[in-house]
């Protein structure tokens, strides 16, 4: 095994709570209706192609991408389109969604549903990009950046390394962990497809130390694939953040305001690699994903294979509540946002649904800053959150910009470790919003 790597500055060690890492991925089944948002990614919402009353199959294109930064949306079930109107998403705002009543489970004919692993990559690089675009694949780590943009390298730049992100450093979440354990070979083929599309030979799958089963499964497979390596990284939060991961794996630092491609790297989540495998080799567009339903308010934590659009309440009924639920979080507890609508649908980027008990939801009592410097110590980007906070309190956003608040990756290490319980991350976020608004 090669050396365990990590990023240089900052980082924290929150409790892991990976209670569902030994639980096999199970099918969540089909709810009565699904609600599919037309915008599940960063960028413009997709244009709706279907009408009320239309019959759709699993994999039917529902909405077409609109512009470069956008993604297709496919039906995740077969049935009848009931309505296309604005509905409440997890944060309470309204967005356009397509409601489909589930009737049977009829798939589009060209989707290969056999469990066989197809190893030979027949598609040409251009075809691969085309298929990825047509399959509506977006980054499945959480941000939802459309994948085709990452795979098409802008002119004048070159990539020499594909990094697959299997870190999953957020507490509770085990979706990627299970995926690597159960579908290791598919992920490796996904890496190979990315290699072919980019015209390079090297791929690194980064996994953190606390997933020995996943590391073993991947290492077993990668022996047969020359050029694909498994890199073990230290268990530290936010090891899975793009810039921190690149630094750990390659030793290259992404300059402020630059993208990974500027240091010749392409980073994809392992979930995205799996989706790429399914799209290219099995002709299956992205309409289902692995979701961890966990938390101390859950009776039986599960890793579900969920169709996009399944209401969160349907999954919560399946796992059973344990005690009085005080908070529901979509995503991980560090970076995810708590939701106010329990009927909100699972989207392409929902990696987890967490239920926390009321007694564990603490309203922090904020006290004045004591200048201990903990926030500076833990910031993986080398920022000074306490100084940013002071500027934001006085409305001096331009000063905050001068000390690089725009490089904040919103990991929350500062707020997590602040002994005065100051919501430092909130101040940084506010500064970022205000600066971007003024532009």
């Amino acid at each position: 095994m090669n050396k365990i790597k990590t990023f240089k500055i900052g980082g924290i060690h929150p409790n892991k709570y990976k209670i569902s890492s030994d639980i096999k991925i199970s099918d969540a089944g089909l709810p009565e209706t699904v609600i599919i948002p037309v915008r599940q990614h960063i960028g413009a919402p997709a244009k709706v192609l279907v009408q009320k009353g239309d019959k759709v199959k699993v994999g039917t294109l529902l909405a077409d991408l609109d512009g470069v930064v956008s993604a297709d949306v496919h039906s995740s079930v077969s049935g009848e389109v009931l309505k296309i109107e604005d509905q409440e998403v997890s944060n309470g705002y309204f967005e356009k969604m397509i409601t489909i009543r589930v009737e049977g489970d009829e798939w589009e004919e060209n989707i290969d549903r056999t469990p066989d692993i197809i190893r030979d990559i027949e598609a040409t690089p251009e075809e691969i990009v085309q298929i990825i675009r047509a399959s509506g694949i977006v980054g499945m780590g959480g941000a939802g950046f459309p994948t085709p943009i990452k795979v098409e390298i802008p002119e004048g730049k070159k990539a020499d390394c594909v990094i697959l992100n299997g870190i999953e450093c957020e507490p509770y979440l085990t979706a990627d962990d299970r995926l690597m354990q159960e579908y290791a070979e598919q992920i490796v083929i996904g890496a190979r497809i990315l290699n072919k599309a980019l015209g390079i030979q090297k791929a690194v799958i980064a996994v953190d130390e606390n997933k020995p089963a996943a590391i073993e499964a991947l290492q077993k497979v990668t022996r047969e694939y020359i050029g694909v390596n498994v890199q073990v990284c230290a268990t530290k939060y936010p090891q899975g953040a793009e810039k921190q991961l690149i630094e750990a794996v390659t030793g290259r630092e992404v300059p402020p305001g630059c993208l990974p491609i500027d240091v010749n790297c392409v980073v994809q989540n392992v979930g995205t690699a799996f989706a790429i495998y399914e799209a290219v080799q099995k002709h299956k567009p992205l309409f289902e994903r692995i979701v961890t339903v966990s938390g101390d308010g859950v009776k039986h934590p599960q890793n579900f294979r969920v169709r996009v659009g399944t209401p969160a309440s349907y999954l919560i009924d399946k796992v059973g509540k344990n005690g009085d639920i005080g908070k529901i979080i979509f995503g991980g507890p560090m970076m995810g946002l708590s939701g106010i609508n329990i009927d909100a649908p699972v989207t392409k980027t929902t990696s987890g649904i967490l239920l926390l008990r009321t007694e564990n939801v603490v309203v922090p009592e904020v006290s004045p800053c004591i200048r201990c410097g903990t926030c500076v110590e833990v910031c993986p980007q080398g920022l000074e959150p306490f100084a940013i906070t002071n500027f934001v309190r006085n409305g001096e956003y331009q000063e905050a910009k001068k000390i690089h608040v725009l490089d904040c990756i919103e990991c929350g290490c500062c707020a997590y470790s602040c002994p005065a319980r100051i919501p430092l991350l909130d101040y940084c976020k506010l500064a970022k919003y205000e600066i971007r608004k003024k532009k």
Partner: protein
Amino acid sequence: MTSLILFNVLILSMIAVIAAIVLYFTAKKFQVENNPLVDEIAAMLPQANCGACGSAGCQNFAEKCAAATADDFAGLYCPVGGQKVMSKIAERLGYKAQEKERTCAVLHCNGTCQNAPDKVQYIGLKSCRLASRVFVGNTGCPNGCLRMGDCVRNCPFGAIELNKVTGLPQVNPDKCTSCGACVRICPRGLFEIRPMGKNGVRVYVACNNTQKGAQARKNCKAACIGCMKCSKICPDVKVENNLSHIPTTISAEEFGEQLAANCPTGAIIFTGKKNEQN
């Protein structure tokens, strides 16, 4: 001992005299020609430097006034100083001051703690601008007031405070100078600068929700449901996007009471008469 003290005093005084002479001539040489008129006008202005007039501070506004012709001057107005200050400046310049009605900020939301009770508890930085980005707000209304008081903290004149009973920001019309800081800061765009009206008689729609009636009422009892009753009373009242808008051109004295009394949800607010009686 005495000679030492004398010597020191002498040396220091000499340095002082030389420095004074140097400073005197440098000041003469590098003197900046100031229009005395500008300073005079600037002295009349409130010196709040709020930017409500559209200029970069009071000095800049004074410069504009001093350079203005009679026609240009008609377009200049200091909302903070109001009619009083403007007529004073006009007198100094020999122009005629333009008649302008006093204005103040009004809040287009009546989502009080009673009308729109909190559904969830928000934990984090109490800032409307941040909260409105991450979620819909404690009340569930996507257009309503978040009741966290960004406007209160940003009012340069202390004219807004959070009412403890209703939870909503309350504008004190006597202190409000219509500088527009609240209009710019509110992430939901709930503030509007409207004419104060005679004796403070005003009528306006205290709602900004564009959802359909049933949905809007789910979160707030005082939401405008776009029922069109108001536009039947006064045809100038426009209902667009399920939301009524009362233009400032209609007479509040004539229609105000009737409009407010006939609104089924109480979204139309009529102020003034009552205060006058008290």
